[in-house]
């Protein structure tokens, strides 16, 4: 063990690491660009991105104009889900308003609405929804249905259709109702930003560490100083380790600041062990760095390296489940997330902050990250050696 440590931190390596640190210190912009933009992005996206559906703009055609119809309209518009955007005099006008995007939903109350209610007949209210956005449409449909249901229940208790109910009750014999009692675990207030920031955190870590690492690795080649490094007695692994170590420390610092933002600006609860979180973060940074290193070995200049990362980063972030649920992807793509470090890190972060899962529950994700990192680090060392010879 001691020998290993001695080997790991021999004077050659120490000198190389010191050199890298000096270079970073001279490059103030790097340290600045590593800390400030990611934190800004995290805050911006956390506050700005929300899939919540509220204040759906509702246009109304009220052909009945009775107290009953106005009450129904008020039930909709006084809720947080819908907002009255205007009254229209005909269905055609309402249709135009929907297709021009002035309103998102429309409700048409028929002229015989109040009469039917009084006569205890069933009456139908038409509800139009702009369904271009499938997610919003699904949720607003559920809102509308539950609102109508609540309104119905309210009518029943007022006695409008009490008679009907009593008759059916006696006809069918006694029959209980299933009452669903939903309990929202881990996020009872249904705060949208918690899901977003915990996902964006992984995105930022991987994207930034791969960019910074590829830039640092390619710089020596661009400047032509790589030959001098090779002339030194240091081995290739030592050169790579010395390059990675300072970057790792910087990125780790950035991660700590980001965790602070997640905790204090967004109020995400840290239920689980901080150690698990930090271990996951360290692995995530390492895997990001190893992606960057591999990219660097395929490119000749910083510009090329960044260009290459454009081929890798979008699919990596889109198919990670960081911003949307994995179940929204097609079945055949879902298993591919096993190869995605952002997915594993997002699961670890969500597990150990929101859910309080321990290491045992997250072991598969740790294993995934570890394997990913090992494969990519050895790939980069191999590519690096091959290029040198």
């Amino acid at each position: 063990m001691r020998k290993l440590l001695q080997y790991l931190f021999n004077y050659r390596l120490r000198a190389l690491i010191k050199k890298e640190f000096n270079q970073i210190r001279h490059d103030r912009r790097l340290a600045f660009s590593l800390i400030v933009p990611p934190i800004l992005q995290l805050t911006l996206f956390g506050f700005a991105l929300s899939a919540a559906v509220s204040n759906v703009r509702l246009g109304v055609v009220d052909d009945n104009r009775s107290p009953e119809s106005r009450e129904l309209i008020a039930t909709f518009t006084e809720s947080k889900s819908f907002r009255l955007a205007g009254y229209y005099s005909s269905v055609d006008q309402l249709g135009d308003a929907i297709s021009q995007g002035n309103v998102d939903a429309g409700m048409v109350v028929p002229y015989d609405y109040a009469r039917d209610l009084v006569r205890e007949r069933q009456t139908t209210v038409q509800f139009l929804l702009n369904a271009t956005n499938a997610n919003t449409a699904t949720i607003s449909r559920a809102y509308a249905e539950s609102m109508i249901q609540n309104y119905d229940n309210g009518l029943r208790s007022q006695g409008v259709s009490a008679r009907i109910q009593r008759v059916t009750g006696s006809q069918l014999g006694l029959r209980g109702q299933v009452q669903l009692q939903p309990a929202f675990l881990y996020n009872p207030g249904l705060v949208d930003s918690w899901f977003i920031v915990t996902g964006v955190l992984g995105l930022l870590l991987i994207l930034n560490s791969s960019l910074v690492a590829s830039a640092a690795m390619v710089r020596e080649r661009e400047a032509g100083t790589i030959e001098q490094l090779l002339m030194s007695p240091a081995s290739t692994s030592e050169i790579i380790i010395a390059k990675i170590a300072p970057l790792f420390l910087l990125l780790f610092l950035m991660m700590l600041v980001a965790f602070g933002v997640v905790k204090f600006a967004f109020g995400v609860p840290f239920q689980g062990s901080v150690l698990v979180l930090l271990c996951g973060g360290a692995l995530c940074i390492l895997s990001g760095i190893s992606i960057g290193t591999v990219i660097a070995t395929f490119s000749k200049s910083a510009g090329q390296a960044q260009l290459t990362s454009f081929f890798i980063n979008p699919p990596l972030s889109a198919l990670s489940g960081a911003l949307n649920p994995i179940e929204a992807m097609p079945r055949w793509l879902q298993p591919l997330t096993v190869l995605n470090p952002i997915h594993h890190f997002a699961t670890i972060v969500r597990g150990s902050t929101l859910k309080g899962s321990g290491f045992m529950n997250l072991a598969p994700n740790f294993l995934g990250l570890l394997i990913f990192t090992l494969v990519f680090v050895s790939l980069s060392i191999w590519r690096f050696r091959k290029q040198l010879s």
Partner: protein
Amino acid sequence: MRRIVAQARKELTQIVRDWRTLALALALPVALLLLLSVGLSLTVNELPLVVQDFDGSTASNGLIDAFRASITLHVVSWPVDKTAEEALASNAARAVLIIPSHFGRDMARGVNAPVQLMVDASDANTAKLVSGDASQITSAYNQRMAGGMQTGPVQAAIRLWFNPGLSSKKFYGPGIFVLALSMFPPLLAALAMAKEGEQKTILQVYVSSIPAHEFLLGKIIAFMAVALAECLVMSLLLFTYFGLSFAGDPTPVVIATILYAFCVAAFGTMIGAIIPNQAAALQAVAVGGFLLVFLLSGLIFPVENIPEGLRWISYIVWGRYYIEIVRDALLQGGGWPAVWFQVLIIGVIGAGFYGLAWHGMRKMQVKA
């Protein structure tokens, strides 16, 4: 005019020479369109649901069958000796349905029987979908058990317009089309422009007979051509694989596309002129072209959900207006009355970028 064409031809030759830039220009947009359209949607299918049935009666089995029939939920098995929370903590399930003992007996006696649904709410949007779906399933079950007689006095007849199948592909396809157009042409333009500054070839331009505005126009036209070629390839995909077609008058979207191609090409050239460093220019385009358009344009998350203090940013995100135009043309069909303002704004922003690029180029001359 001849000078402009010559400049544009030179740019296009340079693009074709390097496989990286060529792939970036043509292959990557298509790949992105295919990949993101499946990777972005929020509509979920087959969410794993664990059922813990402590009753085991016919009634409880009937309820479970109702859940099994759902498309959104997918009942998975879970060992009885493990607690329900463990299924959620280990990500084996998104929700757990717990049916207590005496459920069947209570139902038969006519007492209301409570059933608990524990939802993993770490993803609030999905949690809402799950609980909404579950409550619809239970109320349908209740109605069926009551012989379908207990429907309320007021019924809602809900019509879904423009996308009745609730296919998220049709919604995200146009959005990602816009994202790809906002990302790749300006990227190439910024790289080309920054390269001139980095390698000091811009000095040759200054001493040649071509004036600054013609030089810029030549560059912009070249990258407009790239953008329009991308647009053509991707719309082919939109009309076939995504099953979209023009819902109304196609003239607004055609004019807007040409203006938008100008706008993004001018944006890239502007960045390249202001930041004469390839790596830094690339990062600036990545922030402007990708992050802003990706996140603040209403591509995935509605603009209305952005808090007031930040929403003004989205008013200057050019992609936002183009997304509205493309969605209108392919889904809603509102035509000119719906989108004339958006078309105008794109033109204004494009002209603004052109002006700034000119300004930046003059400054670059001072520096060089």
